[in-house]
């Protein structure tokens, strides 16, 4: 058990974390590269930066449109995301691990804040799954991964909470810690290849959407030629 635990948070963690970083870097670079190519092809090179930036910020810090549609879902989703982002990065125990491994440290969350954020993430995560199951318009368009993701994201939160807050036997502690680390590693590996890629792609959405409407010139003839329809009547 002890050895497997060490392996999981040692070499296995390093591998999984590297997969995540490289995977995210890959899709980010592909996305930016495609955007640059689209810009070069576009006939009209003016981009409405004011609109793009304001709409991007509206969604990165969503407050403006929160209550327009599905207000309960929207608020739950945001509360879920806050804990999801903050706790893994700024938990004291995690920062300590980074410090002992690579010597880097950064500010951490106070104990109580971390605890409440963990609880809220678990509660709102479960509420989101429930909402997806019960709201017909949401369940109709849901895929398997849409149910799977909140579930798997909650595993490290639940196990982490157990390890940090419950007085349990060392054997049990090790078991939960192992599940905590393995689930975390699994998340790192899957993240770049699934919808969770939105963690790096989302800031680019408005630029991408705008660029896609920037049509290249002379496409009429080019497409007609490819489809063997040149000169064909309307």
């Amino acid at each position, binding site marked *: 058990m002890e050895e497997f635990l060490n392996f999981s948070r040692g070499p296995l963690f390093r591998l999984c974390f590297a997969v995540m970083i490289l995977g995210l870097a890959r*899709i980010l670079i*592909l*996305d930016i590269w*495609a955007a640059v*190519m*689209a810009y070069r*092809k*576009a*006939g*009209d*090179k*003016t981009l*409405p930066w004011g*609109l793009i930036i304001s*709409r991007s910020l509206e*969604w990165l810090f*969503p407050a403006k*449109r929160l209550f*327009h*549609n*599905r207000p309960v*879902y*929207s608020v739950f*989703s945001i509360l879920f995301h806050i804990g999801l982002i903050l706790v893994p990065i700024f938990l004291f125990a995690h920062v300590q691990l980074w410090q002992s491994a690579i010597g880097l440290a950064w500010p951490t969350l106070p104990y109580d804040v971390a605890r409440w954020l963990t609880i809220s993430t678990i509660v709102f995560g479960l509420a989101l799954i429930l909402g997806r199951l019960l709201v*017909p*318009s*949401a369940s*109709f*368009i*849901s*895929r398997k991964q*849409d149910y799977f993701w909140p579930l798997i994201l909650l595993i490290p939160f639940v196990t982490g909470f157990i390890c940090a807050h419950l007085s349990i036997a060392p054997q049990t502690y090790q078991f939960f810690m192992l599940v905590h680390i393995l689930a975390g590693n699994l998340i790192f590996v899957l993240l770049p*290849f699934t*919808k969770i*890629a*939105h963690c790096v*792609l*989302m800031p*680019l*959405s*408005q630029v*991408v*959407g705008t*660029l*896609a*409407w*920037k*049509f*290249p*010139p*002379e*496409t*009429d003839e*080019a*497409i*007609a030629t*490819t489809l063997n*329809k040149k000169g064909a*009547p*309307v």
Partner: protein
Amino acid sequence: MRTRPITPEEKARAFKPTKKPDVIEKQKLDVRYHIEEFDTGDRPRRFLEAFAAILKHTNYGLALDHFIRMSAKCSRCATTCQVFQATGDPRDIPCYRSELLLSVYRRYFTVGGALRGHLGGGGMDLTDEKVQEMADSFWNCTACRRCTLECPSGIDHALITHLGRFILSEMGMAPRALVVSTREQLEGQTGNTSAIPVPALKDTLEFLEEDMLGDKGVEIKFPMDVEGSEYVFFPAVSDFLMEAETLMGIAAVFTATGDSWTTGTGYYDGINYGLFYSDRILERVVKKIDAETKRLKGKNVLIGECGHASRSAKYFLPAYCGGDKAFPVINIMEYTHKVWKEGRLKLDPTIVTQKVSYHDPCNIARQRWIIDKPRELLKAFCPNYIEMTPSGEDNICCGGGGGTVSIDEIRPYRTTVGGKLKADQIRRAGCEILVAPCANCKKQLRELVEDQKIPCEVVGLHDLIYKAIIFDKPTAGSATDNQHDKKGE
């Protein structure tokens, strides 16, 4: 804003088949709009060929790659969509509609999809039924882009629907109403979507000039083919048949300011159905505007009261006709607002006393282009102006957007489903006059208030301006006369 879903009776009326069974059998396609005869063989393969050709020469791939990587299926778009809210049919959820095309893209144009497709034993393959579902679904959408505004992931569902319609049109599956009009515009004798020949155009405008002289006691002209004009005018050509008051209002404003403007007899149609179903058509029509403005040595392209005409010129003239060297495009409301601000246009606030409200056409408001200017104008001379909510960039579509208004056979659908939320909004606002500065919105809203029995008159902005405009001095020797002199030179 929410609405109750339509009743089963309303649904039966809205979706009543308009075609004979033998036509459906022949087309192997039971969609609500008419399609001209087309090659029905091997549709999935031809769909993919068209898709591949379009991806090769355009920028859609960028957006599709981005969207398939991050679509989170949160279903927020469902509560925004006026079509889904009216039908309650989950297949009308924007995200579901987008997924129809995204799944094809994922399966055939990504490595992962190709692998899974081979392993999955054909379950994900494109079939005739899926093509049929897309042909039906993409024309339920009014392309109003409200869902895009509410998508946390920024997924542009309207872009995907636009692309889907483009691919289908390359297979010959576009609504006949749009194709026939476009054919006349690009290949016909008259060169415009309403098939108005030049002599008829001249007759109409002369008739309006006489009318205006009688009305206002002022000589108001529609200058034709005046070279070197500041503004070359392209209204939705149907305005010449149906929106005389709007045109008279515009002519009156120019008479009051004395600025030079002209309508070219070479080409005088702002309508561009390409925006609704084909980028290839979009490009060809935009180039006609460019060519006519060049021919007349004009300085600016002026689009009349029409949302999609304004958007297709403003955003795609630079794309297809020289980038930043393309002619500047302005909408007539921008011009009128400008001259009013400069004090060159005076409006009498005692004429229009009814309760007036303003409807934002999606194509000019959604991207925050023209929102406040018409409101400032209206508030200046309509003492009983009221605002509808939501408005501006969040405004609710009239229900006839995306070209659907021109498809006459689906009027029951437009006025029961597409426009239901708008009808609720108009009713609640309780306005007597609704200003809709868009040829499409006007036609749809008139049909909507008629079918839904709402006591409200739908007009253009310049219809009201025509009523309220004040002329300072007699026009002898005014700018319009000068323009005629120039023409004679």
